[in-house]
């Protein structure tokens, strides 16, 4: 199949070899599981259990609210010991509503309700099952998958692209998953294809994963509508819009969905979760996580229950060799800094990296020399140096005009910057400020509305009082006459 070029991108050292050969291992049960109610994009889930309640593995413990949300299930059987605020796995470490589960060690499942013949039922029943299983995009974006499977109702869809690019350095969880659970992943892919009603399915895997490509190709030969395509190893190949452009040559319009050009993209790990939800009736309660980085004693790929403390995984891998310079949740390009290690693994966590100073190469920023390397590296065709300059001057309108909202925060620009300018932090700051200002504006409009309503109410009350007085006066004058 002919592939198309995308602009920009970088070739970071892959550093996948440390964990690429490590088979997926299970982790011993931690003492406590802490399950945040917000593990997805959209509205937080609402707890349906109370403290002291005994739950079974796979039981619903929080239901989704609204259109874009996802339910949450108990990762093992045990007792709910606390429902309250706990640190979020987030750079701020701010609290989030968290359900704490004390495992009883029995790991006892609820009655599972698999779908017997999924290819004979209504496609919408599959997406309903996916929604009920709490499946979200497991490449890291954590957008509720069922919403994406229902796009069929609103768009003409031609192709389902399965994202097995795994372009972030270090991470090997998707690679191992494709190698060890090939049949299950492919089944999940077919189920998603059926739910979406698409003609073609393309599985895109970067060329640095020849084994995963080979296994999936063997498995996919049985179906003539599924193609396994090797894509060039280049960051950010795993960005859905860029992957679609590489495969089809079609560029997604700015701030639109890939569905606008007839394509839906799902991650391989999501496909595996869909398989488990539909065929076994199991909700999403675990995921594969890569533990790696130069400061980690051993690198591993682990199947981890949602809610497992990250410290537990670090201990399982033998702790640190040396004091890490930076701890990351996710890959080195787009991962988030972890200030504390007692926070839990959530549905979107694909890796925990402990990087040494030699790996982070963190240096103080120098002045911008306008070399435009960031411009060449930007896969979205933006001018990162201009956007940063506008942001530095707090000219957010200028930054927005320069394309702030089209930036995918991939970090290619910061990676190539010879002055080590933290460009992505500028963009994250600018976006946060934009949202802040929108919120302030909204609040101000609301305040104005409230003040107007109050003035109207006071006027109404005064009017009523005047009328009442007039009536009394009239009554009195009538009585005297």
């Amino acid at each position: 199949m002919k592939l198309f070029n995308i602009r920009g991108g970088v070739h970071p050292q892959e550093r996948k070899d440390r964990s690429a050969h490590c088979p997926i291992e299970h982790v011993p049960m931690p003492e406590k599981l802490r399950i945040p109610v917000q593990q997805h994009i959209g509205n937080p889930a609402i707890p349906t259990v109370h403290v002291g309640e005994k739950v079974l593995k796979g039981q619903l413990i929080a239901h989704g609210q609204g259109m874009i949300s996802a339910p949450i299930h108990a990762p093992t059987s045990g007792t709910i010991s606390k429902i309250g605020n706990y640190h979020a796995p987030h750079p701020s470490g701010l609290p989030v509503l968290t359900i704490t589960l004390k495992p009883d060690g029995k790991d006892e499942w609820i009655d599972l309700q698999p779908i017997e013949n999924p290819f004979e039922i209504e496609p919408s029943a599959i997406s309903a099952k996916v929604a009920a299983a709490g499946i979200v995009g497991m490449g890291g974006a954590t957008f509720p998958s069922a919403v994406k499977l229902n796009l069929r109702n609103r768009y003409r869809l031609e192709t389902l692209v399965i994202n097995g690019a795994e372009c972030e350095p270090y991470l090997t969880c998707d690679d191992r998953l494709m190698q060890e659970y090939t049949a299950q992943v492919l089944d999940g892919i077919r189920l998603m294809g059926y739910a979406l009603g698409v003609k073609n399915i393309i599985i895109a895997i970067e060329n640095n994963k020849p084994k995963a490509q080979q296994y999936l190709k063997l498995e996919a030969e049985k179906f003539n509508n599924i193609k396994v395509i090797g894509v060039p190893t280049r960051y950010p190949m795993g960005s859905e819009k860029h992957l679609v452009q590489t495969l089809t040559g079609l560029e997604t319009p700015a701030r639109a969905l890939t569905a606008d050009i007839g394509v839906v993209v799902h991650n391989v790990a999501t496909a595996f979760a869909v398989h488990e939800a539909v065929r076994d009736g199991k909700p999403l309660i675990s995921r594969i996580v890569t533990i790696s980085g130069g400061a980690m004693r051993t690198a591993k790929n682990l199947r981890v229950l949602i809610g497992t403390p990250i410290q537990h995984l670090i201990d399982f891998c033998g702790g640190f060799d040396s004091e890490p310079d930076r701890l990351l949740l996710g890959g080195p390009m787009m991962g988030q800094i972890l200030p504390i290690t007692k926070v839990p693994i959530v549905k979107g966590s694909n890796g925990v990296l402990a990087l040494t100073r030699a790996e982070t190469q963190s240096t103080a920023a120098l002045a911008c020399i306008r070399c435009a390397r960031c411009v060449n590296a930007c896969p979205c065709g933006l001018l990162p140096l201009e956007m940063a300059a506008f942001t530095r001057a707090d000219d957010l309108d200028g930054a927005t005009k320069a394309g702030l909202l089209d930036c995918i925060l991939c970090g290619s620009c910061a990676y190539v910057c010879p002055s080590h300018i933290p460009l992505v932090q500028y963009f994250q700051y600018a976006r946060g400020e934009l949202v802040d200002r929108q919120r302030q504006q909204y609040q101000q409009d609301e305040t104005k509305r409230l003040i107007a309503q109050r003035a109207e109410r006071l006027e109404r009350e005064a009017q009523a009082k005047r009328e009442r007085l007039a009536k009394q006066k009239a009554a009195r004058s009538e009585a005297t006459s």
Partner: protein
Amino acid sequence: MFAVLSLTLMGLALGALLGIAARYLAVDGNPLQAEINEILPGSQCGQCGFPGCNPAAEAIANGSAPITICIPGGKAIVEKLAAKLGVTIDLSALSDNTPKFAFINEALCIGCQRCFKRCPTDAIMGGPKQLHTVITDACTGCGKCVDTCPTECIRLREIKPTLQTWHWHKPNEAMV
């Protein structure tokens, strides 16, 4: 006699002219002030030190008050004012007056109803001899209720960032 008559006539004619001019060519205050008043929140909270938004708008319009004066308005209002007045402004000066909200210590509240009668945004609810509470989203942190509470049970608290509102701070680079 002639002098008296002519002066009287002139006086009357010119007076009438002035009267007509005052009637038809009148300017209602400073137009800039009205536009600024439109931008300001209008809650008459007085946190700026002026008795209300209109006096503050007047002070901003004649340049005696800085455009960063409105505390509940935040950066959004400063930017709008800067655009309106065509001035550049250093937003970092704003950081120390963070927005606040009122908080009622319910153990001390006697349900006197004084606070919610004064609240410009109707952000306090309660009834006679019942606990009062603040609807935080509607509170502008003006502090009018604080002054009026007989038991001093209302305090202003800073709005703390949450997971939804937190974002990365601006990189501090001395070099760039």
